[in-house]
C-alpha cells in the first residue's frame, strides 16, 4: 500500500530534463559544470526560506506537540521557531538536507539532547497534553514512554536476550522469569527477529548482521512498551534488503505505536510515512500529507529538495 504510493515520484527523470535550462543561470555560464544536473547551493537559498511553515503542521488530538522550538548548540542556532504535531498512530517522516536540524528536533522529543552540555532547548513540548520539559518531569519516565532507535545499530555488548530484557528489567516491568521470557519473545517477534535468533538468545547481540542488529534495537525499544518510537535514520547503515525489512516492520508497528522517523531517503519517507515534514537550515519549511508533499510541494525549497536539486 505504502510502496505503491511512492511510484508516482520520480525525481531523477524530472530533474534532468529541467537541468539544461537552469544550468546557465545557476552556474554563471562556466563550461566546467556541464553535468546533467546542476546543483543549487543551499546557502544561497537561505534568503528564500520562509519564516512561516507552509502546510498543516498541526493535527487534531496530537500524540506529541512541539511549539516554538528553538535549539542552540552553544552559539549556533540549530532550530528556529519550529512548531509541529505528531499525530496518534501515524508515521511522520522528517526529511531535509544534512545539518537541517531534523535529527536535533527528533532528539528534543525524548530529551536526548539533555546529555549534550552545550545544547539549550526552548519551546513547549507536550506528550498527551503533559509538558515533557516541565519541572518534575523525569527523563527516565519520558524515555520509557518515548523510545528511540538510532542511526547506527547499537546493541549492548551483551546477549540478545539481555539486550531486550534490559529495559523491562530496570523499569521492573516483569515480575518473574517467565514473564520476562514472554516480553523478550514478544518483542523479538514484533521486531520480526525471533525466528532468526530463537536458538541463539545467549549469543552476543553484537554478533548479528547489521540489519538484524537494527531489528534487535527496535525490539529493545518496544520491549518497554513505549507510546512513541523515534527513529533517527534507522536504515542509513543497512543494505537495501535489510532496509526493506525495517520498512515493513515500521508499517506493522504503526498499528500500536506512534512513530517519528528521520530519513535521508525520500523514497523511504514516501513509502513508510503518512505525513512528511521538510526541514531546511533549522527551519520547518513545509508539512503535509506525504502524498501531497511529494507530488505537489508548495514551497520552492521543498520542490528543489525532492527533485534532487540540492547537491
Amino acid at each position: 500500500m505504502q510502496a505503491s504510493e511512492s511510484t508516482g515520484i520520480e525525481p531523477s527523470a524530472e530533474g534532468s530534463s529541467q537541468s539544461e535550462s537552469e544550468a546557465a543561470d545557476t552556474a554563471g555560464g562556466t563550461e566546467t559544470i556541464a553535468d546533467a544536473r546542476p546543483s543549487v547551493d543551499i546557502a544561497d537559498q537561505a534568503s528564500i526560506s520562509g519564516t512561516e511553515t507552509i502546510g498543516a503542521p498541526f493535527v487534531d488530538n496530537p500524540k506529541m506537540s512541539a511549539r516554538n522550538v528553538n535549539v542552540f548548540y552553544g552559539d549556533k542556532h540549530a532550530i528556529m521557531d519550529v512548531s509541529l504535531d505528531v499525530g496518534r498512530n501515524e508515521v511522520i517522516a522528517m526529511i531535509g538536507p544534512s545539518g537541517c536540524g531534523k535529527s536535533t528536533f527528533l532528539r528534543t522529543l525524548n530529551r536526548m539532547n539533555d546529555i549534550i552540555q552545550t545544547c539549550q532547548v526552548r519551546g513547549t513540548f507536550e506528550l498527551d497534553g503533559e509538558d515533557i520539559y516541565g519541572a518534575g518531569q523525569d527523563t527516565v519516565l519520558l524515555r520509557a514512554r518515548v523510545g528511540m532507535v538510532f542511526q547506527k545499530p547499537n546493541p549492548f555488548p551483551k546477549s540478545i536476550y539481555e539486550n531486550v530484557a534490559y529495559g523491562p528489567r530496570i523499569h521492573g516491568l516483569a515480575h518473574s522469569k517467565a514473564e520476562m521470557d514472554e516480553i523478550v519473545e514478544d518483542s523479538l517477534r514484533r521486531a520480526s527477529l525471533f525466528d532468526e535468533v530463537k536458538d541463539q538468545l545467549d549469543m552476543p547481540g553484537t554478533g548479528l548482521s547489521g540489519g538484524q542488529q537494527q531489528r534487535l534495537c527496535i525490539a529493545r525499544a518496544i520491549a518497554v512498551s513505549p507510546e512513541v518510537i523515534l527513529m533517527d535514520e534507522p536504515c542509513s547503515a543497512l543494505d537495501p534488503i535489510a532496509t526493506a525489512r525495517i520498512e515493513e516492520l515500521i508499517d506493522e508497528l504503526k498499528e500500536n505505536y506512534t512513530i517519528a522517523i528521520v530519513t535521508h531517503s525520500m523514497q523511504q519517507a514516501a513509502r513508510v510515512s503518512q505525513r512528511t515534514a521538510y526541514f531546511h537550515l533549522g527551519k520547518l519549511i513545509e508539512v503535509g500529507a506525504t502524498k501531497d508533499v511529494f507530488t505537489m510541494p508548495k514551497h520552492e525549497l521543498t520542490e528543489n529538495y525532492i527533485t534532487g536539486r540540492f547537491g
Partner: protein
Amino acid sequence: MSKAKSADKSAMIQASLKKRYAKERRFQWYGRLAVLTGFVFLFILIVDIVSKGTPAFTQQFIKVSVHLDRDTLDLPENPSREQLFNANYYGAIRASLRDMFPDVTSRRDKGQLYRLLSVGAEYDLRDKLIEHPQWLGETRDIWLRAHSESGSYLKGQVDTNLPESDRRVKDLQIGWLDELRAEGRTENRFNTALFTNGDSREPEMAGIKVALYGSFLTLLVTFFIAFPIGVCSAVYLEEFAPRNRITDLIEININNLAAVPSIVFGLLGLAVFINFFGLPRSAPLVGGIVLSLMTLPTIIITSRAAIQAVSPSIREAALGVGASKLQTVFHHVLPVAMPGILTGSIIGMAQALGETAPLLMIGMVAFIMDAPGGITDPATVLPVQIYLWADSPERGFTEKTSAAIMVLMAFLILMNALAVYLRRRFEIK
C-alpha cells in the same frame, strides 16, 4: 604529447622510488636495531641476576655426628619441653665438632672449626631433638646448616688461588671441608629458610618472608584505597562533573600529581600520617596509604581514558530505553571500560610494588625478623629488603640480593599475568 608527458612523469616517479624504498628499509633497520639493543640490555640484566641469584636458592648442609648426652646439653633425666628448648645445643655441637677433628687443639683453630657451621645450626638441632626426644643420650648423624662462607666454598664460589689473607675461608677450613665432602658429609639442599625466615645478620639465616608479607599487605592496602577512590573519581569526572574552571583545575592537578617525585609522598606520609595522626611507624598500613596516594593519579588517568574510549552509542542506547545516568554508567559503560581500568590499576600497583623511596621515609627500612601479623605490625617490603642486602658486604648477601630481585620480578610477572587474565575475562567480544 600527453603520452610523452606521462612517460616523463613515470620516469620521475621511478627515479624517486628507489630513494623512497631505501629510506623505508633504513628506517626498518633503525627500528630493528633499537628493539635489539633493548633486548640485549634486558638479556644481560636477567642473565646477571639469575646467575648471581640462583645459588641463594640452595643451602649447604653438613652431616655432624652429634653426641646428645645430658651433661653437655645441660638437661635433667626427663626434660620438659621448655628445658629442651633452652638446652646448651651450642656446646653440644662444639664438642661434637671437636670429636670429629680431634687433632685441632689451638684456640684459634677451634674457633675456625666452629665457624664451619652456621649460628643457626643450634636451632636446627634444637628442633630435631624436640621432634625426637628419644634421641637423648645417643650419638646421631644430623644434617646441620653450614656457615655462609663454608657454604660458599662448597658451592665452588671461592677462588683458592688467592692468598689466604684475601680469603674469608681459610686454608684449614678448606682442608676440613674437602675432607667432609670426600666422606659424603656435605649436601646442597633447597633453601627453605629464604622463604620462611625474616631478615638476619647471618646470610645463611636471612630470608624474605617479612618483605614478602610486607609487600603483600602494603599492596593490599594500596589496592583497597586507590582502586575504589580512583575509579570513583574517574567516573565522576568523566560522566557527571560539569566542564568548568574547577574541573579543569582538578584535571591539571591530577596530571601534575602523577609527576611528583615519590619521595615527596613519603615525606607527606611521615608528616601527616605518622606525626599528626599518630599511625604506627614501619607499618604496611602507612606504607599502603602513601603508595595509594602515589598510585591514584595513574589509576584516575588510565580509568578516565578507558571510560572515554567507550562508544557514546552505548550510552545513548542505555539512556534511550530509559536507564538513569547511574544505571547507564554501571550497567554499560563500566563493564566495557573495565579491562582498561584494570590494566591501568595493575600498572599503578606494579609501580607501587617497586617503590622504595617513600617507604624509607616512613620507616619501612627497619631490621625486622618476625613476619607481620597485620597491617599495623612493623614490616619491610621487597625493594627495601633488596636495598638493605645490597648494602651488606658479605658474599652471602650478594646472592641473596639477586635472589630477592628474582622473587620481586616473579611477583611482578604474576601481577601482570593476573592483569592479562582479568582483561581477557572482562573483555566483551
